[in-house]
């Protein structure tokens, strides 16, 4: 099982750059890049912060996938 995220989709809907999102949640842009590529699974705290910034329910952004 792995965590799938739709951060990139919701970020683009919000017309937000990776840099802006990174600054708002207090991480580096590289972390957002890594997260969107699916190479990094964020902590619950970071996931909640991203959901809050993007104003989307956390379950719509992050969900379990079978791989």
């Amino acid at each position, binding site marked *: 099982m792995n965590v799938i995220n739709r951060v990139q989709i919701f970020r683009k809907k919000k017309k937000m750059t990776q840099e802006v999102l990174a600054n708002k949640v207090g*991480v*580096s842009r590289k*972390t957002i890049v890594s997260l969107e590529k699916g190479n*990094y699974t964020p902590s619950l705290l970071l996931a909640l912060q991203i959901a809050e910034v993007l104003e989307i329910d956390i379950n719509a952004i992050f969900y379990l996938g079978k791989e």
Partner: protein
Amino acid sequence: MKKIIFEQTGNIIMILLTTLGMIQTVLTATVTEEPFSFSFEFGIFWFLLIGWLIIFGIARFLYGKKKNNEGYSTKKGEFSTQDEREELISIKASLFTFKMLIPLWIVLLLLCFGLSLLFTDIKIFQTTVIGILGGSLIISFLTYLITWIALDSKG
């Protein structure tokens, strides 16, 4: 990534100069038993080390104060992190370095044992052991650095 390269480069130079200083001192040291006297040369490498410690110390202080320093902290050094992803990278790099060092030190221990039986000249043995220990420290700094860069680039 820059902060780790900065810190590890400084550490490697520091250990290199320390090792060379020790080797030079050992090679120039003379001990006589009757009457007891001891002398050694405070060689160029110790002066270079002092100079490097001052330069590196100032550079670390300034880098720590700099804005946009990727979360570099003089207290944490090579374990400085900007966010949770870098924390994970730091942990993984430390673990890999530890796993690499244990077998290396076992090999080096056996090597020192073997050399102690072979070498008849005590000075050659002393400098070899210092070189081996200094070298293993440099290898550990390099391993951490390369692992950190590799993990960071993977993202």
